[in-house]
């Protein structure tokens, strides 16, 4: 340890300064690595979907439409992800060569395990939020191709239509929410700015979206 000096000479000041800049840079680099890479990754827990579901296979190769799985029910609620039972309408037995499909049939269809409750929802909203898909589907009627529909849906959702493996689900360990969960400003892009997407007539009253 350096001897304590009550009087600081210009030389000694210059010397510490030099050494200090090194410390500053080291601190900066360490913090940047921590702040940009280590901590964000520590804070987010990465989860995989229970099944490596391929939208590409279903839509492009098998020619399915979006609303065969994701549809508005007669009571106005949205079906969301399909249930094991719905999947089993086709996958009652192993249809292809994909090992994931075989696993799905074995572990879910044959045992009656429910895929829907295990499926991780990227956009899961808290209890206080009311969201009706049916009330947001106005322009959907005019859209024909899955690609157009995917473009429309991806205004809020991750565009999964062209993925052959589901995106990783990253959950904030502190808050418990997915990093893709849309915040209120996301809703207000339209609800506060009526003309943002053409006149949507969206109300920005509290009760429109909260319950």
């Amino acid at each position, binding site marked *: 340890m350096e001897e304590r000096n009550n009087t600081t000479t210009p030389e000694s000041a210059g010397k510490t300064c030099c050494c200090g800049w090194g410390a500053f840079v080291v601190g900066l680099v360490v913090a940047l690595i921590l702040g940009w890479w280590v901590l964000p990754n520590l804070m987010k827990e990465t989860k995989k979907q229970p099944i490596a579901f391929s939208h590409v296979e279903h839509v492009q190769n098998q020619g399915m439409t979006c609303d065969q799985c994701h549809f508005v*029910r*007669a009571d*106005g609620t949205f079906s969301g992800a399909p249930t094991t039972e719905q999947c089993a309408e086709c996958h009652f037995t192993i249809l292809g060569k994909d090992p994931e499909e075989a696993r799905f049939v074995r572990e879910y269809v044959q045992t009656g395990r429910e895929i829907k409750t295990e499926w991780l929802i990227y956009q899961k909203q808290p209890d*206080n939020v009311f969201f009706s*898909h*049916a*009330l947001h589907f106005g322009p959907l009627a005019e859209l024909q191709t899955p690609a157009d529909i995917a473009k429309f849906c991806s205004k809020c959702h991750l565009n999964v239509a062209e993925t052959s493996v589901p995106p990783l689900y990253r959950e904030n360990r502190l808050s418990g929410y997915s990093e893709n969960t849309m915040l209120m400003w996301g809703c207000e892009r339209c609800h506060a700015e009526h003309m943002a997407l053409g006149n949507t007539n969206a109300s920005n009253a*509290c009760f429109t979206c909260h319950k």
Partner: protein
Amino acid sequence: MSSEVKEFKIKWGMVIDLDKCTGCGACMVACQAENNVAPAVDGSNKLRSLNWLKVFRLSNHKPFPDHETVYLPRPCMQCGKPSCVAVCPVIATDKREEGGIVSQIPPRCIGCRYCMASCPYHARYFNWYDPKWPGDLAQALSPDVSTRMRGVVEKCSFCHHRFMSAQAKARANGQDPMNLPDGAYVTACTEACPNGAITFGDLNNPAHKVHELIKSPYAFRLLERLGTDPQVYYLSKREWVRREGDNYLENEKTGEAVIK
């Protein structure tokens, strides 16, 4: 805050025929279950229990045997000029949406309770404690209304989630969500009342039954002369019941109030 009065194309309203109400409490039970209001161990303690809808017992103040009893269910009046909205410092309560329902957003509420002080109908309740659903009771929570937390105010919302569901259903079936047929949206209490004492609908829509009912000579509102313009109407053929609705001088008659 928003002290200006907003006019709405749709005005959801309730008409409660007090001559039909027998005070059985089915509406209160249905309300609690529908809106996830936590049960109280001693609910007879009205200072400590929380009721979005409360049934009061009225008396004509005459001695036996000329005494008469009437039960009066009291939801939130969804006032046209809500005094609670005007005093809320954080806009946790508001009246802005088509339909004229006064909203209450619990996570936004800071618990100052100004709204409770300003509400002349005592329709607002404060969560002094965290709500509790002992044992497995939470399994029966309805998915439609978020649970509240300690330190916030809550009140009747005319089962607003049912309005939203009715709109979604109308849209799903190709109907106009802003022109719901009579009965497509009713509150849980309306539905639960075995006597049909509560009628619910759009006060502005001539196709809805309430539109006619509020024109009845027997219709009145609570504390009408305060000018809060409630969207809840009451009916009674009995003059004394209508007098209970406001503070009348002995020589005053009901139905004379000038409603601005």
